[in-house]
């Protein structure tokens, strides 16, 4: 068990002049921590993981596991285990052989090897399947074998590259909690790559958000949600996505039509320092308060679409802002009675409004 440090780690693909796939990544993962790397495709999250595995080169900077600089070490010497997206089970070996392959390569005696394989199999409910070939297993079972193959090695770090993306929705939710529970129990440092922000939020001790090879923010899920560092993180985390609109800044307030939201002092100071005339306002769909209750005015919009999910209702609303029409998504109680083309008055709790610099996208304050 060990901590993991990316120290200005950079990887550039072959194409000359192209932007690096991972650009000066600085990230410290604590011993025993479950770190999720999340981002859209092409964000460099998988590349970062593969650099840590030793499958991609570190072209500048360094990577350390514990106190060892592993930057130049081949994968086998890094004491890591990896779960691949398609599991990469050896099709010609049965489950036991798949799980024991690394130990066999390492020259471990057969009795000890068998013991560890059986132990991992018990942990994962794989005991009845030890003699089966991967092609005779279900998707979920294959996924567990891939996990088992990582566990038997008792590595310092688990690396997981979208390990749930090949499972159906129901199984994915189930397996999600199993993995989180298992890694917590084993206490092994885990780096987990996903493009699914729900996985990121539910599984990670901390979450690192990447975009175009650049780290955007590292924080606990709660912090990411409550104070996203920039517009990208704000829009990426949360579903439905945060409503983001650029509006005029008048005095101390951001003006959304009839709705005036006062900026907190820190945000106001930052806006003043940049001499901003507009700010980018971010409001989560659930931050709109029930109508006609909060002081500070309201804004009225026309309902364009109602998505009734049973427990919740997502209402898509078109609002005329000074700079033109804008769409908002509002999350309301499932029992609300509302229809297309009706008008809806919205108000919002100022404490739950986020403010960003419209040009740089960074959080104000």
């Amino acid at each position: 068990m060990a901590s993991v440090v990316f120290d200005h780690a950079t990887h550039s693909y072959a194409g000359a002049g192209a932007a690096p796939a991972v650009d000066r990544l600085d990230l410290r993962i604590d011993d025993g921590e479950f770190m999720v790397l999340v981002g859209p495709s092409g964000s460099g999250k998988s590349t970062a993981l593969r650099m840590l595995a030793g499958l991609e080169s570190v072209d500048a900077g360094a990577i350390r596991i514990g106190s060892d600089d592993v930057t130049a070490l081949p994968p086998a010497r890094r004491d890591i285990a990896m779960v691949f997206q398609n599991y990469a089970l050896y099709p010609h070996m049965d489950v036991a052989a798949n799980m024991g392959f690394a130990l066999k390569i390492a020259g471990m005696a057969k009795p000890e090897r068998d013991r560890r394989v059986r132990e991992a199999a018990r942990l994962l409910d794989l005991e009845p399947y030890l003699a089966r070939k991967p092609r005779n297993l279900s998707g979920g079972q294959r996924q567990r074998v891939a996990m088992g193959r990582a566990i038997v090695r008792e590595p310092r770090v688990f690396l997981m590259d979208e390990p749930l993306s090949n499972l159906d929705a129901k199984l994915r939710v189930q397996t999600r909690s199993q993995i989180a529970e298992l890694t917590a129990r084993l206490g092994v440092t885990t780096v987990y790559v996903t493009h699914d922000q729900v996985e990121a939020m539910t599984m990670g001790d901390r979450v690192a958000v990447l975009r175009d090879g650049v780290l955007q923010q590292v924080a606990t899920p709660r912090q990411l949600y409550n104070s996203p560092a920039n517009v990208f993180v704000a829009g990426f985390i949360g579903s439905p996505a945060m409503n983001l609109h650029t509006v005029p800044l008048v005095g101390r307030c951001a003006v959304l039509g009839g709705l005036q939201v006062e900026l907190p002092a820190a945000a106001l100071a930052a806006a003043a320092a940049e001499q901003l005339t507009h700010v980018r306002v971010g409001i989560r769909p659930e931050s709109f308060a029930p109508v006609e209750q909060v002081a500070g005015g309201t804004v009225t919009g026309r309902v364009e679409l109602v998505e009734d999910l049973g427990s919740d209702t997502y209402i898509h609303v078109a609002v005329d802002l000074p700079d033109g029409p804008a769409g908002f998504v509002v999350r309301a109680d499932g029992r609300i009675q509302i229809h297309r083309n009706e008008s809806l008055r919205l108000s919002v709790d100022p404490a739950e409004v986020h403010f960003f610099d419209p040009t740089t996208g960074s959080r104000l304050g």
Partner: protein
Amino acid sequence: MPTEDLLARSRPNARDGPTRWFGYRRRHTFQPAEQTVGWLFSGPAVVLLTLFIVVPFLLAVGLSFTNQRLISPLPVRLVGMENYRRIFADPVFQRSLVNNAVFTVVVVPVQTVFALWLAVLVNQRIRFISLFRTAYFAPVVMIMAVAATIWKLLYDPDIGIIDGVLRAVTGGHLSPGWLRSSALALIAVIFMSIWQGVGFQMVVLLAGLQDVDRELYEAAEIDGANRWQQFRHITVPGLRNQLVFVATVTTILSFRLFDQVYVMTRGGPLDATQTMMTRLVDVGFNQQAIARGSAIAVVFFLIVCVVTLVQRLLLREREAD
């Protein structure tokens, strides 16, 4: 040694290939370099290919400009294009070019279509079908020297079953005598070659047939396509890769035509079945005119290269449609 030579000049950080195998050489040296392993893996093949194909071929090119004979009192000297002039002036070689062309033009389409028909037939799901598959493939495992010998007997005008049957059916009027007829010998060779070779293509196409998504047929059926339309618009396009492979390989093999001719007719009668390869062996080995034989080899190689390139261009164009 080309291996060492290339290793010595190798860039330490070549990025043009696929996988990185080891740690990164820029930073440390204790892991064997991927370059080395790449060359160790391919080394034996490279050495053998060089010694037994590249060098002899280059030697053939070189010899084709000399007057080298296997055993000759005359000193070896350069004769320029003389050998090429002679082979193109040689009526037997001209005949062999025509024969090769005819063989290819007939065999490639006929054998491919025949193989496709067989593949569709044996792709039916009915009882004993795998027996039929085996039967159709069986000639492929009969070596050419044997197959040609058997067919030589079958084609014999006096004791062969083929003419025997023709006589019986036509009351003794028809007995063409295949291999002894200069008009029919090439046709007989073609027929026998297809018998021997079509099974292999059938297997390749069958493999392709079984990979065509069954849903496509169901969709076509819903769209009202009849069986011929399904074959035309789903099976054939779905088999495109296999058909291209089969046609390309058959073309190359057609130009190589040798064994069956060598055993059945030795190029006769009256050069009716001469091919570039039989002519090459005849000139180069039997007449011991190594230089002229080499010139034939070079011409052969160039022709096959051109045909392959043209074929590839044509197919690529169709792909672009």
